């Protein structure tokens, strides 16, 4: 192991710790802070199950954004969908499937389920390029529309550029400059606790670029607007059921 490999190993652990501790602290901070009053944006579901379904509608379909702005919804949805697909494809690496490959075995789930999942799984294989396209769409909209340009800070562009760098390098690796997949796997597996550390694939600068940006994103996450990923589940206007006449809502500080 050369010093540069140790740097990347160290970066991974540092970024992982910043992400876990920072995000964990935020979640805890939201969780311990009470909602003294019932404030769902109405009309709202009257039951807890209904409120959960409402939040699910926001998380899975961005329903409110759809009502608010179709272009932002379209590019935003595309971006999040392609992130979800990318995360899914990266997540199966431990099963022995390379990120770009499609040779995952679903037969263990039974033939019917396997036939159903197979085509979708194979299709995700081709969705990669949509990610940078979606990010470019969002960037263009942010800079183009006078109102969003007015509300944008350097940080808003920086995060989109970070995502563009991650997505762009990912697509390039898949279609243009394929890295040494074995070396990459070896290195990434070595990051798992319990595995021996493996050298970083120094011959694949594009991979190292991709990897470094992902680590940066993880470190920025707890201190940026990326917190919306967790925060949406804590937003009282969406997650509270509308039942104040039926159930008396009391929090300690507000009942003295």
């Amino acid at each position, binding site marked *: 192991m050369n010093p540069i490999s140790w740097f990347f190993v160290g970066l991974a652990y540092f970024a992982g710790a910043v992400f876990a501790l920072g995000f964990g602290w*935020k979640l805890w*901070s*939201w969780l311990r*802070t*009470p*909602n*003294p*009053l*019932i*404030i769902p*944006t*109405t*009309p*709202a*579901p*009257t039951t807890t199950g209904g409120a959960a379904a409402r939040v699910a509608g*926001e998380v899975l379909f*961005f329903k*409110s*954004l759809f*009502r*608010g*702005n179709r272009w*932002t919804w379209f590019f*935003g949805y595309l971006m999040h969908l392609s992130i979800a697909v990318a995360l899914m494809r990266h997540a199966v690496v431990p099963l022995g499937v390379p990120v770009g490959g499609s040779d995952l075995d679903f037969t263990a789930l039974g033939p019917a389920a396997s036939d159903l999942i197979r085509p979708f799984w194979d299709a995700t294989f081709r969705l990669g390029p949509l990610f940078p396209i979606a990010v470019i769409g969002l960037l263009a*909209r*942010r800079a183009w*529309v*006078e*109102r*969003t340009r*007015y*509300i*944008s*800070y*350097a*940080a*808003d562009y*920086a995060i989109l550029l970070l995502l563009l760098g991650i997505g762009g390098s990912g697509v390039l690796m898949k279609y243009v400059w394929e890295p040494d997949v074995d070396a990459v796997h070896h290195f990434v597996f070595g990051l798992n606790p319990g595995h021996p550390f493996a050298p970083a694939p120094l011959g694949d600068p594009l991979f190292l670029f991709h990897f470094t940006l992902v680590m940066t994103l993880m470190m920025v996450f707890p*201190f*940026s*607007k990326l*917190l*919306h990923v967790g*925060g*949406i589940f*804590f*937003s*009282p*206007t*969406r997650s509270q059921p*509308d039942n*104040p*006449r039926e*159930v*008396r*809502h*009391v929090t300690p*500080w*507000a009942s003295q």
Partner: protein
Amino acid sequence: MADIKAPELTGRIEVPAVSEGASAEIRPHVAGEAHMTKIGFPGKLVDDWQERAIEKMRDLLSKYRSLQVFLDICVQCGSCTDKCHYFLGTGDPKNMPVARQELLRSVYRRYFTPGGKYVPGWVGARDLTEDVLKEWFVYFHQCSQCRRCSVFCPYGIDTAEISMAAREIMDSIGMGQKYSNEIIGKVQTIGNNLGIPDRALADTLETLEEEAKESTNVDVKLPLNVKGADVLLVTPSADFFSEPHVEGLVGYAKVFHQAGISWTLSSYASEAANFGLFIGNYDNMRKIAQRIRKAAIDLGVKRIVIGECGHAWRVAYSFLNTLAGPWDFLDSRYPVPQHVCEVTYDLINRGALKLDPTANDQYTVTFHDSCNVARASRMGDQPGGQFEIPRGIVKAVAKKFVEMDPGTTRDRTFCCGGGGGLLTDELLDLRVKGAMPRMQALKRVMDSDGVNYMASICAICKAQFTKIMPYYKVPRETIGGVHQLVSNAIVLGGKE
């Protein structure tokens, strides 16, 4: 005031170009010492206001999850930017909901987040300077807390919560708004926002009884402080004196009369409005709400019914149980509290009221959803009952009913432009401009369908439209209450 000009009525709502500082000079009067100290705030701006403001922010962040989450998670997506009536009316970019939030969020970042501490320029973090404070005072009093932006936010971020917090911080350092704080003082000493003493209230009600007797030949009563009545009616005090509000009050009285429900008003709780909400101050809001509890206990009533008032209904429906409950001493067969529209609608459905809709034949009616009713409450058992129940009443008492553009009704309704503690003369320019979206939608149905009556169930909407409609060359009589129509159509006397 002569220089106030209303936007042209074209029937269309157009998103304006950004015009920096367009409404920067519109600001409310600062509350004087007497109005501040009376309701528990420092009389004037304290010397160490900056530290105290940050401390207050820290305190609120620990008390309200909404504030913390909303300040943390906005992604500046821009979905809200063209949704606020004050932005649409003024073009001032600081009236875009996200930009309004940013006035507070930028300070939050500076003092509470690592990014704001170390790279303030990158993330849009600002020191709390005197200029920032002045900007807060201007733009957090250009928000009517109508929650329209929240509807379209992917995370439900509600600018109302942010502006309430900002006003609370400003009050805590001695920089309050005169209009709201003076009114809160009045309701806490006299019992209502208008400062009507008991005797004057009793006289007014007597006069109204006499007028009702003259016009209907029936003894419609408006009882005050009657112990043992079944229903305590708590209504905005504007209903006692203002036009067209008072017509609605007579309407409630006729409904109770005809249904044979024993009811009373209370001079102690002669106000449904609760401006404690507007300034985001929990203690004041609770104290005002507790007056209703005391009146209910003292008078020994079995039910509480709230009159036509938007934010009052929010406080009553959503918060009364928390602020002044539990209500286990009241009749459990009825929700606590009930909206007067729920009562009337129920009576209509049971056939308990005889109605003659031809009495409203001179009107083609549309319905203006008031923001706090639409987006912060419910009526009846089902979500959306707050839309269906008042419309159900209107359709039962008037034959010609027309909806406005669906992009401007129900949960997408536009504020009248005078809510949230902005119904004061020095903000008239803003109020006229903020009414633009609603006035455009109204104009369209006036032209296409001959609408000449816009029914509303909010005292602030009624007062605001009465004042601003003439600027748009629309007759002020176009605005009225739902129970004003009920009052016209209800047939008093024996049932056939």
